């Protein structure tokens, strides 16, 4: 059980909100924090900010960050602290008429990491379908130099780092994969994304690796082994929504790990074509080491 100690400056409040995962300095599972610290006076709707993040949800955020964004330097930088701290506040970007989406910003101040969460809720008129998330999803992750707002604009939370790291370590390999219905959608989407086989890809069945799913991300990563390509499906919609798959043809990105990877982005300044080897390695680790191997027979006529 991970407990969050109340900020000594503020009054403790009763809440089921636990920012454990977040407090873990942006990486991996937090476990089961039981209380959240009371927000400091002056924070904008601090209870609302806290309400955005349930215990389990925050734990999943940390797991996502651990798998996709953290590295050893990040964790090493907070090793000397006995507790981890996160700041949270709602955001209010200008939205389309009728869009009821909500945004929340979470900062990990000791590692200067900023996570924006979004809970989408709007109608895609052309498809007659509503994009609606069952929970807040990671919208963006970035490092920052200075906090975007004054400290008193945030609700501040602190958690026992030892418990957090213990949970992080124990659950570091927990994984979830698409069920059969999702895999049917995925097979079709991957076949479309692969399209006609490039000349450099040998024939036969396609061997793909599916990265584990995350309840806080609508990204779906696939490594196509014989095509040497990382394929990413992404969407504002949840994987379980029909609209996700209706938009799959426009939401797919492919990276050729032989052609689009460099050691340093300084090798091709200004180009949007490349990713670093470190990043590609992380994606491959998630797909191959943690992922699920699937063999797809050639499509009709191939």
């Amino acid at each position, binding site marked *: 059980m991970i407990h969050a100690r109340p900020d000594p400056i503020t009054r403790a409040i009763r809440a089921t909100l636990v920012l454990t995962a977040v407090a873990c300095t942006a990486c991996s599972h937090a476990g089961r924090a039981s209380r959240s610290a009371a927000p400091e006076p002056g924070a904008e709707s601090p209870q609302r900010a806290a309400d955005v993040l349930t215990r389990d949800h925050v734990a999943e955020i940390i797991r996502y960050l651990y798998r996709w*964004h953290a590295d050893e330097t990040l964790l090493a930088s907070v090793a000397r602290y006995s507790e981890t701290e996160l700041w949270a506040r709602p955001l209010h970007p200008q939205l*389309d008429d009728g869009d009821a989406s909500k945004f929340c910003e979470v900062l990990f101040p000791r590692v200067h990491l900023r996570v924006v969460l979004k809970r989408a809720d709007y109608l895609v008129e052309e*498809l007659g379908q509503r994009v609606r998330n069952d929970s807040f999803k990671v919208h963006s992750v970035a490092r*920052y130099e200075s906090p975007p707002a004054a400290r008193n604009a945030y609700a501040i939370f602190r958690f026992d780092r030892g418990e957090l790291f213990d949970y992080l370590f124990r659950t570091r390999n927990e994984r979830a994969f698409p069920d059969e219905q999702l895999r049917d959608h995925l097979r079709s989407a991957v076949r479309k994304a692969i399209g*006609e086989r490039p000349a450099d890809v040998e024939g036969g069945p396609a061997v793909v690796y599916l990265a584990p799913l995350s309840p806080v991300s609508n990204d779906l990563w696939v490594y196509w082994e014989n095509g040497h390509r990382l394929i990413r499906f992404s969407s504002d919609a949840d994987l379980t929504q029909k609209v996700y798959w209706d938009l799959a043809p426009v939401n*797919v990105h492919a990276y050729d790990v032989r052609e689009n990877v460099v050691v340093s*982005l*300084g090798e091709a300044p200004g180009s*949007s074509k490349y990713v670093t080897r470190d990043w590609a390695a992380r994606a491959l680790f998630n797909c191959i080491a943690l992922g699920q191997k699937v063999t797809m027979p050639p499509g009709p006529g191939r």
Partner: protein
Amino acid sequence: MITRCRISIPAAGRVLAALLVAGTVVLPRAAHAVVMLPATSSVDGYVCRLLINEVPFPGERGYTSEADTMLAMEALLRVLDARLRHIPPGYTQQQVAAVRTGDVIDVITAGGVKGQFDGFYRDASGAPAMVPRISERIDNLVEIAGRGQPGKFARLLDHAAALARGYASGALSCRDPHKDVRAVDGVAATGRAYSWMTDEPQYNPGGNFLRIPDDRAGSLGGNRFFTLRKNPR
């Protein structure tokens, strides 16, 4: 360009008119929109497709609002123009854009095997081309835009086409959200954006590019924009 297809109403006889008045016959409303983009072989057609490919549409990751996506398109166009016409002192166009040219198509297709804008290149005959996934994505967006009454998809596609048409005809009057970015985290900057990338930590143009922060509209349409150091390293 958005055109509306109207279903013709047959010449109304008295009976039909009576039925209409009685409300027992409902005439179909204006049918679906038809979005037509300029030809890919034209300058505005090619520029327009770059703008469309680089921004999120409703339902896509990174989508915030129609206004945000439109402003992102304008910012992208400003990057192209900056690489073409506003190379800052201390830099060469080759350094900033990987090409020396007065042609915006060359700016888009620059880089050869180290392409500046992934998926856009010149084919063996020298004609501007794009990889199939880009053409397919745009075809899908156009098809979606054509369903039902003109909506966000159609307006966004039309906005890209209008921006590109204006630029190709020599008129660049859209907003430039990064023109006056003169410092980033205490580092003197040139102003204007000279690069963009997907707004995720793993993407960074490197070199003398400076990440424009959020409070200077650095993140638009799921893209992060970059200016240049005033004093190159």
